[in-house]
Every structure is written in C-alpha cells, then in structure tokens.
C-alpha cells in the first residue's frame, strides 16, 4: 500500500506542478530570481482578487440556495477550530524559540491561521483540473477560519502585552501604575476583517448568489475568466515570494523553519478534522482537501493590515516575510498537490 501510495503521490505531484496554476507560480519565482523587470500593475492585482473572490462567492451562493445548510455545520465548526488552534500552536512553539519575539510569533500564527483567497482559488482550480468534486459552498468556509484566527491572535497578543506591562509596573520601585492596560474589543476586529476587500468581495458574491439571479454574468464572465486571471495572480505571488525573501534575512532563522513546516502541520490538522466530517456527515473528500488547503494557506490581502493595526508592536517584516516569501509558495506549490495526493491515495478517488 505505502509503495503504491508513494508512487501515486509522486506521479500526481509532478503532474500537478505542470498545471497552469502552479506552473505560473513557479514561473513567477524564477523570473523574479532572474531579475526580470516584469511588473503586473497593482490595480490589475486588485481587480483580479476581486473577480476571483466574487466568483467563489457566487458559486457558493448559487449552491447554498438549493442545499441543506445542516451539512455545513460540522465543516464550519472545524474551520473555526483550525483557525484558533493554529494561533495557539504558534504561541507555544514559535514563540518559545530563541531570538523570536512573542508578539511577532503570535502575529505570525494569526497570519498563518487566516486564509489566503488566492491560495484557496488555486486549490479549487487544481481540484477541478483533477476532476475531483467538492461541495460548491466549500469556498464559503473561508471567513469561518479567517476571522477566528485573526481575532484570537490579536486577543492573545494584547493579553500577553498587558500581563507583561503589569509585571513591569509591579517590579517598578516607584510603584506607579504605568499606562493602564488597553482592553481588546473583539467586535471591531471582526468588523474590520469582514470589511477587508477580499472578504467583502466574497460575501458580496455570496449574497448575490443567494438573493439575485446572477447566473448570466456568472456563466458569461466570472466563471470563464477565473482560471486565466488566477494564472496571472499566481505569477505575481511567485514574484512577490522571491522579492520578499530578503526581508526574512532581517529576522530570526526560526521563521524559515516555521513557515516551511507550519503549512503541512496546519493542513494535516484540518485534514484530520475534515475526515471526521467525511466519515460522519459524508463531507466530500474534495471538501476535506479544501479545508486542509485553506488551513495551510496564510492570509495575504486582508490579514496583514488587520494584524498591523491590532498588534502594532509586532514586526510586520517577520510575519509578512514568513508568510509571503515561504508560507504561501509552500501552501500553493507543495501542500495543494500533497493533500490532493493524500485524498486520492486514502479516499481512493
């Protein structure tokens, strides 16, 4: 079995690296490494992200219209659990490593717990290329992992900072109270993430899919353009990944180790939870893969500004560098094929 597994897996893996989605990612890293001056304008990236997430939302919305929501409960729950768990994993592993500031570690956990719309889009596309079916509403799991992760990270970080501050005040001979601890409001954080460009595009699509009749533009515009636009975005992410590698040098080596291992770890955690839903609620294997992929992904658009505002004292070069330069390419280029291979080998699909 294990031999068959390996062979199946490797065969598959190579094949998937040749898929448009992944090959453009790799292509982007290569041309950036070769110092190409190719630039995809920011406005183009913005509109691509908008279209990808609106399309994912529309798909979900149209699907939800005629599907019983009870089967969403467990996956949604597991998405949230994964998002929260990932933050604590970082808190108790990365944060304790030498030369790693605790707040930076927590922020990094938050970013890796949050979801990257583009990574999810890549996952969905590769699944389709592999003719693996999944629940059309699977994309809608996004916010249920994204928001809990960001909220947890910001809360945990501020609790930590307040504790440290109190301790400092206590030791302080003058005995004066020092700046009073700032209490974290949770709702504003949730609001802010919901308002981010990526999530609001997705939720807009979802709402339109549920309440309006967007089928014509969906079939005629958003759906056909999806893969092509994604290929451009993958190129950009590849180039970005390379250009951000430098930033990582400024921070502790451990971030490199973390951002290589974490995507797998997080993905496996979610994959495991997904399998429970697969067995109990026959959540499709495709859905399990998606759960694993969004868990292994780390947020690129909305996460960073939210964390920057929520944990100002954390160093963005640390968490953004880790996720953009290593986390994301690993998630897209390695984890997607890996979890699909895993699903195929296990689920025999």
């Amino acid at each position, binding site marked *: 079995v294990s031999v068959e597994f390996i062979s199946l897996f490797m065969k598959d893996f190579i094949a998937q690296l040749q898929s448009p989605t992944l090959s453009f990612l790799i292509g982007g890293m290569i041309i950036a490494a070769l110092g190409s001056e190719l630039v995809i304008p*920011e406005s183009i*990236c913005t509109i691509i992200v908008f279209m990808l997430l609106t399309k994912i939302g529309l798909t979900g919305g149209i699907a939800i219209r005629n599907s019983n929501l009870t089967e969403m409960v467990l996956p949604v729950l597991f998405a949230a659990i994964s998002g929260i768990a990932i933050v604590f994993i970082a808190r108790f592993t990365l944060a304790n490593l030498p030369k790693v500031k605790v707040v930076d570690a927590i922020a990094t956990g938050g970013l890796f717990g949050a979801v990257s719309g583009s990574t999810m889009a890549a996952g969905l596309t590769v699944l389709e290329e592999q003719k693996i079916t999944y629940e059309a509403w699977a994309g809608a799991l996004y916010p249920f992992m994204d928001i809990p992760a960001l909220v947890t990270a910001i809360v945990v970080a501020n609790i930590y900072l307040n504790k440290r501050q109190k301790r400092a005040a206590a030791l302080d001979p003058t005995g004066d109270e020092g700046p009073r601890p700032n209490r974290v409001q949770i709702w504003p954080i949730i609001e802010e993430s919901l308002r981010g460009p990526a999530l609001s595009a997705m939720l807009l699509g979802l709402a339109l899919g549920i309440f309006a009749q967007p089928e014509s533009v969906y079939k005629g515009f958003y759906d056909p353009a999806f893969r092509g636009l994604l290929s451009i975005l993958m190129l950009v*992410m590849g180039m970005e990944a390379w250009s951000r590698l430098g930033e990582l040098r400024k921070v502790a080596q451990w971030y490199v180790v973390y951002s290589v291992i974490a995507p797998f770890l997080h993905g496996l955690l979610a994959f495991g939870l997904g399998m429970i839903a697969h067995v109990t609620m026959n959540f499709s294997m495709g859905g399990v893969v998606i759960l694993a992929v969004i868990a292994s992904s780390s*947020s690129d658009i909305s*996460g*960073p*500004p939210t964390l*920057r505002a929520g944990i*100002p004292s954390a160093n963005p070069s640390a968490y953004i560098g880790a996720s953009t330069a290593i986390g994301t390419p690993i998630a897209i280029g390695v984890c997607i094929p890996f979890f699909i291979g895993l699903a195929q080998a296990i689920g025999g699909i």
Partner: protein
Amino acid sequence: MSKKANKLVIVTEKILMKKIVKIIDEAGATGYTAMETGGKGSRNVRSTGKPSTADTDSNVKFEILTENREMAEAIADKVAHTFFTDYAGIAYICEAEVLYGRSFCGPEGC
C-alpha cells in the same frame, strides 16, 4: 500681501492615513495636503502583504500649514507619540509664506 506660516511635514505609513487626518482635524488645522510617497529610513517596513509594484507608494506624506508653531508642534507630538514607536515615520517643519488660501486667510485673501 502674505502671511508667515509653518509648514509641518509628516511622512509615515499609508495605513495610518485616516488616523492622522483625524489628529490634524482635531488639532484645529485649517487643512492639509496629502500625497503618496515611498522612501527608506531606519525601519523600512512594508505594512501590507499586497504586492507593492512601485517603490513610490508605500508611504503617505502630509503637509500642514499652520499659523502658529505651537499647533504644528502639537500635531507632530501627538502623531509621533501615538505612532512612531511602532510605525515608520518622520516629522519636520519648514518656514513658508502663504500668499493665497481661503482656508488660511479667509475668502478676502491674506
């Protein structure tokens, strides 16, 4: 006719834009001019994960003309104390002489 003024310049991270506008308004400045800039300093942080294509749009630069130096310094103090420990930023003052500006000298001119 003209009116002496202090021109306070603040360069900092773009995501602080709205918050700094608030501080400026609260300080009672008659207005401000804002533009996108890029740059490099002691901390050269990019505060978003967005692919930043150009190197000229990661920061924002504010120019605030104030009649008295106190207001300029008040704004600078507030901004610096609130943000410059955690965010990239610099603040400096130049002398200027306003020739026309309704916000500054009222509609009848300086």
